[in-house]
């Protein structure tokens, strides 16, 4: 930690880092940016198409010969369009964002209290750890991946119908489980990389 202060409002401009003006934002929410209905089901094709149309318009490449200010604004808009796209593309992030729009707070530390679900997760993780020593790790990993994928699908459906029915507590419960399953899936992928590369 350091003592001392240079006072508010000071700006630095160095070779590496340029402080940029903050506060320029598109006013629409992520769904509105892409002209999509606010819902868990997303038309992936429409999203991809609209995303490209917007980037055709706002990407900094379109402003490379324009003034510095316009370049900066386009960078900020394009960043926001990218952020919106990334959020909507990913089911877990999308679900969390939908709850946020509905005014539900999600504490990153919070986890599901569903005992049965947790037990199931524990068993899945034990099996994950045993893959390495299995006689045929590849097929065991495949079996696990399929199972995890099905669980994820089911939980997505649970989230979607809860949200549609405006049962926000239930939707939040489904999201917490979704996060678990998404993490499991990334662990499966990491293990696959580890084992077969």
């Amino acid at each position: 930690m350091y003592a001392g202060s240079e006072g508010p409002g000071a700006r630095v401009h160095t070779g590496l880092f340029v402080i940029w003006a903050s506060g320029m934002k598109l006013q629409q929410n992520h769904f509105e940016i892409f002209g999509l209905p606010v819902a868990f089901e997303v038309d992936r094709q429409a999203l991809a198409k609209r995303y490209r149309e917007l980037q055709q318009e706002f990407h900094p490449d379109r402003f490379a010969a324009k003034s510095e200010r316009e370049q900066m604004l386009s960078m900020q808009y394009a960043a926001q369009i990218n952020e919106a796209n990334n959020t909507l593309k990913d089911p877990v992030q999308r679900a969390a964002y939908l709850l946020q729009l509905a005014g539900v707070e999600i504490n990153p530390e919070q986890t599901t209290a569903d005992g049965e679900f947790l037990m199931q997760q524990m068993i899945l993780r034990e099996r994950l750890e045993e893959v390495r020593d299995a006689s045929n790790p590849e097929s065991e990993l495949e079996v696990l991946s399929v199972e995890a994928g099905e669980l994820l699908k089911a939980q997505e459906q649970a989230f979607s119908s809860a949200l549609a029915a405006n049962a926000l507590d239930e939707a939040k419960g489904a999201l917490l489980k979704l996060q678990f399953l998404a993490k499991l899936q990334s662990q499966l992928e990491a293990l696959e990389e580890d084992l077969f590369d």
Partner: protein
Amino acid sequence: MALLQISEPGQTPEPHQSKRAVGIDLGTTNSLVASVRSGSAEALPAEDGSVILPSAVRYTESGVQVGLAARAAAGDDPFNTLISIKRLMGRGLADVKSFGDQLPYHFGEDTGGMPSIETVAGAVNPVQVSAEILKVLAKRGADSLGGELDGAVITVPAYFDDAQRQATKDAAKLAGLKVLRLLNEPTAAAVAYGLDKSDEGGDVADRTVAVYDLGGGTFDISILRLSRGVFEVLSTGGDSALGGDDFDRAVGEWIAAEAGLGSDLDAATQRKLLNTACAAKEALAEADSIAIEYGSWSGALSREKLAELLDPLISKTLRACKRALRDAGLTAEDIAEVVLVGGSTRTLRVREKVEEFFGRKPHADIDPDQVVAIGAALQADVLVGNKSREDLLLLDVIPLSLGLETMGGLTEKLIHRNTTIPVAKAQEFTTFKDGQTAMAIHVVQGERELEKDCRSLARFELRGIPPMVAGAAHIRVTFQVDADGLLSVSAVEKSSGVAAEITVKPSYGLEDSDITRMLQDSYAHAEEDVVARALREAQVEAERSMEAMLVALQEDGAELLSNEELDELERAMEALRLAHNGGTAEEIRSRVEALNTLSEPFAGRRMDKSIKRAMQGHSLDEFDQS
């Protein structure tokens, strides 16, 4: 796409002359410059007709040599002849030491986080050396195109981290180039092949392309999705310290072992050995086996033996291909096209292994040494505004994750690799002591969990936090990565209602003052007039600003500005015009700055207007279906 047109009919600014823009491939081994002339992109030749400029710089007591002459001297004058300098771009002295004895140079003290190299002409750093290469290419471009360049697209390996990209941009600045964009080399190659265009003129569905780029010193693999003018980078991977030089080294070591040379070779011998190895490797593209003579030793190298020597290195590239495919969520079967880039892909064994891995014959019709520069030239032509805006859009990704050091030397990823850029992520911090007015943030780049395994990018000091009780300050730090892949950071304390801006001090990289000093150093060498150069640069900047403003006013001035605002802007323009015609560099710069500040609200309104226009194609109903 009609709804995305920004200019109204009749309001289009008068057609201007086409601008002079070039694409530059600043390579480890060779560099090139290319440009679009009468509709097609071509590499620009030097006076002697050669298009390739060896990336070799030799410092002598009387001046600087760049290119072939410098490379030829590498064997006899290894300490003053700097080759493969790109490997040192954005690297610290510690990195350089980790290259071991591969580099024969005498390294001096760090300057601005960079190693310096002792030569007969004094100490130089990698940015200065690269700038020498860029100067030659810029001059070639200006000579070929008949005037000062309006801008350049410079390519970098997709794998380059922030420091390496920044060093490249600094080198361009030092060479007096306006950088329109830093472009990933493999992306440039895909652009050169125009793979988004359909074969029979009809629409093509999306297709994925793998660009395998094995240069002299770097390997890159990029997985791109192409569709109707949009190039989307799905993932990139590679190794910034693996290339044809390593092939030469492997062959060189084999020759040394066969010839019974010791392992402790001096720099000149090493270089000669590498030259022999390189020639042998190239000859095996034609012949099945070739005879080698080195000193009193003579022997033969067969294709089989070469394959045996190279396969471990080629396998490393294929493992990176596999990782990049996984990042893109694809397998080798999903790849519709494979493009070969880089001189090292001429090696037959590389082509065989790549074809085997992807299960299809790779594209290699365009000279693999020129393909990157040609793609960069095409993109430069678009960015400078010569070509219709709907032709080409590149959506690129950040190659390495950005993270923050947390407690216990761990890192927390903030922006994951292969996230499309530009991107911004905000993170909140708080103070843990009463009255604390500053805190330190350590930004790292890399994929590993431990801070010490990642590349340290910068240690920021946040200063100027209003004194409060512990935990009361809410400091929102925003990390922004721009379209060149460069990071900037801003911080705001927001608990006090009024957001106070906080000063961020980076600890790594060149300060503007360093660049100015290096500029002056280089002028001292070239005996150029510093003042005249600075004035010309300020004038060019003024011309750019005035032209951009004129276009903006023509398009939107009447609609978006009050008469009063219009008057003010026109007065600022007039003041700039006067300064441009007779003022000093400093006067011009301050007028440009004044005009920019004054036009900020106008620029904002113009962006808002284009947003609204872009939204118009979609009825409001679509937003209300929730």
